[in-house]
């Protein structure tokens, strides 16, 4: 994954004017050489009509520069800005410079999780659907499994291609019964700290445990500015390169004296462990003076929404940057980028 970190470092340099966008795009082309539509990773590409079509027609609006956006998420200015290009200002906590004021990969769809413990299969399915649509990747997996949350969660049958163990070939959710998907799986003697989302996404797309997706497991130590900055830089780099992420959080917990709060409209009276797909960002000035991480919420439309502390409604979900970051660190979870 050093190569991907180098991309993130290079994107920081693009923002500082030390590397040209053309050079960076060439590096992206090299990294994503096997993608059929690799130009889609270029941050400076134009937004496509297919992307705009992913916004509900009733909510579809355009900025003066042709950027489409969801009117329910429009800028807090209440007026249409002339363009969506980010203006660097002082005081950013990030090293990287986003290209846009707001960038959301609208083609990462919201999918309701099939049951109460399938948030990770739903998040992976949302991300993989994006790869199918944006990069023309096949719906089925590298090993020929049909696209579904169940396939992503399933245990292996003996002798199936891609089964390197008896527990599962992707997320191994079903191996836990109703317990959900682990952040790390400790039972592989050859790799005691396999990260399940990395394992699942890479095996589905590329047939190998390690691939384009890499985990960042955050230490259970005091929260630091450098780790917040590191997440922020990877997040912006990925979204500008049209590369959705997945996060695993622990809500409403306290460890080492630091309390994590909850995602919007989640219950606050108990701990919740939750996976979700990250698909965008908003910079200060879009809504207010905060950075927002945009994500898709698989709880909406599922059997667990409403009546038990959840009150999710349809629409774009977002969480303030520091609030989210605390949820990573309090239990030593993290994200896959």
């Amino acid at each position, binding site marked *: 994954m050093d190569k991907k970190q180098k991309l993130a470092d290079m994107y920081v340099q693009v923002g500082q004017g030390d590397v040209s966008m053309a050079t960076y795009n060439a590096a992206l082309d090299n990294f994503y050489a096997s993608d059929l539509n690799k130009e889609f990773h270029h941050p400076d590409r134009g937004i496509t009509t297919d992307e705009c079509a992913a916004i509900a027609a009733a909510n579809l609006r355009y900025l003066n520069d042709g950027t489409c956006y969801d009117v329910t998420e*429009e800028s*807090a*200015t*209440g007026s249409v*800005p002339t363009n969506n290009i980010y*203006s660097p*200002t*002082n*005081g*950013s*906590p990030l090293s990287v410079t986003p290209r846009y*004021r707001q960038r959301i990969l609208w083609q990462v769809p919201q999918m309701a999780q099939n*049951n*109460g*413990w399938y948030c990770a299969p739903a998040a992976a399915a949302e991300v993989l659907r994006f790869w199918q649509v944006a990069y023309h990747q096949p719906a089925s997996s590298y090993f020929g499994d049909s696209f579904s949350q169940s396939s992503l969660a399933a245990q292996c049958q003996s002798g199936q291609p891609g089964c390197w163990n008896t527990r599962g070939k992707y997320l191994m959710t079903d191996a836990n019964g*109703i*317990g*959900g998907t*682990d952040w790390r799986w400790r039972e592989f003697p050859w790799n005691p700290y396999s990260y399940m989302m990395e394992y699942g996404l890479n095996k589905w797309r590329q047939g190998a445990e390690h691939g384009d997706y890499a985990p960042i497991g955050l230490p259970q130590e*005091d*929260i630091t*500015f450098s780790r917040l900055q590191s997440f922020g830089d990877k997040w912006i780099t990925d979204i500008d390169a049209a590369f959705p992420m997945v996060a695993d959080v*622990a809500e409403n*917990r*306290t*460890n*080492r*004296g630091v*309390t994590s*709060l909850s995602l*919007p*409209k989640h219950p*606050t*009276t*108990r*701990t919740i*462990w939750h996976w979700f797909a990250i698909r965008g960002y908003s*910079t*200060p*000035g*879009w*809504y*207010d*003076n*905060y*950075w927002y991480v945009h994500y898709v919420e698989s709880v909406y439309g599922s*059997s*667990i929404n*409403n*009546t*038990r*502390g959840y*009150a999710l*409604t349809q629409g774009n979900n*977002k969480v*303030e*940057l*520091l*609030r989210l970051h605390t949820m990573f660190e309090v*239990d030593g979870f993290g994200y896959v980028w």
Partner: protein
Amino acid sequence: MLPSALRNIFRAAHLSKWIPLLLLCVVSLLVVSCDFLASGSDSAAAPTNTPIRGRADLSHDATPLAARSRQAQPSAPTAVSAKSPAQSPVPSAVPTSLVPLAANLDMAQAWGAAIHRQVQHIPIQPNPTTFLLVQSVTQDGRFLLASANPSDPQNSANQQSSAVMVDIASGQATEIGRVPNPAGATTSAIQVYEIHSDQDWIVWTQAPQEPGFFSDWALYAYNRTDHSTKEIARAAKNKNGLPALGSNGSAQIDHGTLVWTEGVPDLINSQRSLLKLLDMPTGQVTTLSANGWSPKLSWPNLAWIELQSPPDGSPTPGPGEAKAQVVVLNLENGTRKLLTRPNKPSYIALYKDSFAWISNDSKRVLLTDLAETFERTIAVAQGGDSFQDPSLNDRLITWGDQLSKVEVWDRKQNRIITIGPKGHQLVSARNLVWVGPTNAPGSTSDEIKILDTTQLP
């Protein structure tokens, strides 16, 4: 002439070029609002514009890391939002007032500098392996009711969650219940939640996150006199052995009356919950609603959200078209009524005759009384913020937000008071409780803070 505090805010936020626009907005708000304010039963306070609140927050943030996660110079102003309530007043014969026009104050400005000395502090981690998650406060204001949970369940697999009473005066915690199994890892860990009390009983629910997101719950009651504990109810099971969806078993109790919801088993592609009432002295159980949730009890009134069935012959409502209203039942005289104002509220709260709710879009906190003699919007979420979990008493109303700040509405001063950063805030009969950073220099730790609201000036 702007007050100096506001000038500083403008200067800090580099908004001077927007001052004319903001002033225009203030004037517009006043013009539009005056009719409403004049007819409302609540008095209006000194004018300001709600977007200023967002700017003022910059100067109140005591968390350095939080401050560094923001831009000091927004690239666009947040003022004059299209979501301004002044542009979308709700037509009504009921007096309806809009967002208060009084500037936010901090605690010292609102209640005097000595107020900080009245705040009591409880460690959120009584020891390194346990943390407290406050659920409520006893009605006499003496004890926090909290779940005590392993802070690192992956490395403390043998530790169990428990229900505890924490003496606010001494900080001493007393365990009153413990889950049967060790916490184990993450979603299989049984947790204690929604602990509530009256004079004689403390009730709580316990369940693991999975299956079905706290669907496999059990409800317990602890007798405060003889210290016995009994199981009251548990989730119904489907034929496939999994618990019925539709409820997490959360309960409330007052005057010996316990209310909770139960999921209905074996429904196909749908879920609903029965609202049940138990008279603790007699053991008599009554089903109050076949499709109700989120019960809130403040004797003698019980309020809940109920899905309203369309009249016979009406077309089946499509997704999002079904109407959910608030039902209020007076448990002393048996009268039942529907509140007309809240439609599909996302969250509700009840205290005595006062009723607060969060709008369906989670952007507003609203207040009325059970006779609905007025309706008042007391806060509007700005920018990307949204609200949830309101609670109230005679003096304060609070709610959760997404920007990790604690605010309350002071019903005496008719203005929002900024308490500080962080969250998990709640208002009980006598207390405001929240989680915020400790005041120790250099510390990044949080603590539980408690303020006796009956002592507020």
